[in-house]
């Protein structure tokens, strides 16, 4: 009984592909057409977001069916977000979940639809065979010359019924399981598309377009060779490909990425204008009508530029206010620490020194031996005070950093570390003082933390300067558990953020600890 229910459920899941497939077809056509049409205007982003929501709902509905009918635990990954209007649109396009959901729905629409039809037909035919003797008179069934028109002949078909049903049951369960796995693999979430995947996607897109174009041209060449009709297919293909390529280019170029929304808008507008001009050139070549859409594009681009500029500026002001407050805070904390160190360290030692010397002066005449002892003690005290002051000065700013640069300063830091440190520095030039100092203190703080808490036996410092960014990574093989919100790392973060840099700390319990800072250094 249970198996029968399971079969019915699986069958239902397969058959649901019919309405889901129809809905998918309608949604994909409507969604992409509307997005493409509206992408001329900023409203395209809105349409895209609505479209993404609809796809998400459809996928969620199918996932709910898979859960209740097949008992497969699958939950569609939530749509990844972004802040800001353009960023949100961009987040949709780079959301791996969005594309995987579409792939799943398309498979459900094509393969699923065909399977559902085949499955239903097989079951209907099997049932028909089973009760064939009851209706053979009205049937016109014939296999070649062999006409099923007598009762004995119709009885021959009866055994085919159970066989067909058995096959149907097996196939249903097999395909239901297949789609269940597919749903889990494609709807079950995952990270956003990696750069490599996106590059492969672009390559696949380009090759598919080229193949389609080639086939059309071949067909044209093999047939009449009259009017060059493939151009009407090649133009839109080229348009879509150029927009795709431009979007990927924007993502890879740091310069363009800074104003991503505007860059994509400008690229798409340019591609569309070229497209329209080509259409004009291919058709009438009379009145130059593309000038009107071009003007419209220019206008929307101008509005977009102005809006982006003002939001960029206000966002930048917000970041600056925050990092400035952080930098001031960090400086205050640092000054308090220095003040405390001076009072409790060197100053206290000098007081003790003064006392020893005062005592020695008193005893000089009466007890020269103990006076000499006191003076010797005072001399040792001076040595201690000097050492403390030297360490303090070094903690404020190590002289070797300004004299010999980051590499030498890190080597020196490694010399003073109790834990063995491997330093590798790839730097061709001296960087601005503030950058070198911040990088140095990232390493210094990381080493101090490692020495205090990690129990590490080995630390690696890696510094490299690439694409106008200085990266410094410090990793140890200790037990982890560093507190990223602790005072030392917070001060460091503020120091780095005041230079528009970023600091990432990864230190799971059990280790290892990785601290990585990136500092922009535009020259």
């Amino acid at each position, binding site marked *: 009984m249970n198996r029968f229910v399971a079969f019915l459920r699986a069958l239902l899941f397969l058959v649901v592909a019919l309405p889901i497939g129809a809905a998918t077809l309608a949604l994909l056509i409507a969604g992409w057409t509307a997005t493409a049409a509206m992408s001329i205007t900023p409203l395209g982003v809105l349409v895209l977001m609505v479209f993404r929501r609809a796809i998400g709902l459809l996928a969620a509905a199918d996932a709910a069916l898979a859960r209740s009918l097949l008992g497969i635990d699958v939950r569609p990954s939530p749509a990844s977000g972004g802040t800001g209007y353009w960023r949100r649109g961009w987040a949709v396009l780079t959301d791996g979940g969005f594309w995987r959901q579409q792939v799943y729905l398309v498979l459900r629409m094509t393969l699923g639809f065909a399977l559902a039809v085949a499955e239903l037909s097989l079951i209907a035919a099997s049932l028909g065979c089973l009760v064939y003797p009851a209706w053979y008179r009205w049937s016109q069934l014939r296999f070649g010359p062999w006409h099923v028109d007598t009762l004995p002949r119709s009885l021959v078909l009866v055994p085919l019924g159970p066989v067909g049903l058995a096959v149907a049951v097996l196939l249903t369960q097999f395909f239901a399981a297949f789609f269940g796995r597919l749903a889990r693999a494609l709807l079950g979430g995952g990270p956003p598309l990696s750069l490599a995947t996106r590059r492969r996607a672009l390559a696949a897109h380009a090759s598919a377009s080229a193949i389609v174009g080639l086939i059309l041209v071949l067909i044209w060449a093999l047939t009449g060779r009259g009017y060059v009709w493939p151009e009407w297919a090649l133009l839109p293909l080229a348009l879509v490909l150029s927009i795709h390529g431009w979007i990927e280019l924007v993502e890879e170029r740091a310069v363009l990425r800074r104003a991503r929304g505007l860059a994509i808008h400008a690229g798409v507008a340019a591609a569309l204008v070229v497209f329209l001009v080509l259409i004009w050139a291919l058709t009438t070549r009379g009145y130059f009508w593309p000038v009107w859409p071009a003007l419209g594009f220019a206008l929307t681009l101008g509005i977009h530029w102005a809006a982006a500029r003002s939001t960029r500026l206000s966002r930048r002001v917000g970041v600056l206010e925050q990092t400035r407050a952080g930098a001031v805070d960090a400086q205050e904390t640092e000054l308090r620490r220095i003040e405390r160190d001076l009072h409790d360290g060197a100053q206290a030692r000098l007081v003790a020194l003064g006392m020893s010397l005062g005592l020695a002066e008193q005893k000089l005449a009466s007890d020269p031996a103990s006076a000499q002892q006191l003076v010797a003690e005072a*001399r040792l005290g*001076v*040595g201690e005070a*000097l*050492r403390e002051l*030297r360490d303090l*000065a*070094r903690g404020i700013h*190590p*002289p*070797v950093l*300004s*004299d*010999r640069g980051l590499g*030498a300063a890190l*080597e*020196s830091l490694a*010399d*003073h*570390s*109790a*834990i*063995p440190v491997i330093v590798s520095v790839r730097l061709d030039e001296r960087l601005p003082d503030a950058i070198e100092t911040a990088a140095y203190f990232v390493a210094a703080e990381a080493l101090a933390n490692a020495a205090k808490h990690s129990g590490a036996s080995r630390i690696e410092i890696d510094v490299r300067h690439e694409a106008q960014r200085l990266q410094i990574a410090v990793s140890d093989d200790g037990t982890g558990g560093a507190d990223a919100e602790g005072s030392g790392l917070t001060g460091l973060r503020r120091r780095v953020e005041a230079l528009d840099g970023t600091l990432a700390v990864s230190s799971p319990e059990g280790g290892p600890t990785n601290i990585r800072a990136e500092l922009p250094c535009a020259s």
Partner: protein
Amino acid sequence: MRVVIAEDLVLLRDGMARLLTDNGLEVVAAVGDADALRHAVRLESPDIAIVDIRLPPNFRDEGLRAALELRRTAPETAILVVSQYVEHAYAAELLAEAGAGGIGYLLKDRVIDVSDFVDAVRRVAAGGTALDPEVVAQLLGHRGAKRLAELTGREREVLELVAEGRSNAAVAKALVLSVGAVEKHIASIFQKLGLPPSDSDHRRVLAVLAYLGPE
């Protein structure tokens, strides 16, 4: 023994001049910047110049640069570089600049131990070497730890003093050993490290430092 001092802080310059004069050395010039140092060395041809690393106008490493230059232009003058801090990178730069005269690199703190300091000045002026114990400690720290694993504790102590540039007699005195015992230890160290034996204290230091320097 004729000495030139280059130190920008008047307090320290006068104090050091007094200290050296009291100990029987002749301070022929005490100057405050690198240009005056070059001039004084050219004029006086002293036995030794004591140079602060940080000098005007930028207070970075003008003194060290001037010292390296003097190694070439006035090789017969020994150089003792003093500083508020020591970095073995600087020591390596100084030692790499070969010259006839002695070479030294000490923390300013060392003036506190007057007899030790004067001893170091005399040693360098006589063509020897004086390397600050802090630099030696940096070199013998975890960098050297692996390569020095074969040495006994006593041999390590001897090696530290040898790297500071001390003579066998001075090492023997510091460790309360006989000179013969020290010589035996040194022979054993040099054999374990695979270094050529050397009579000159200065060349001995160079060999040890080259051995311990960065790979």
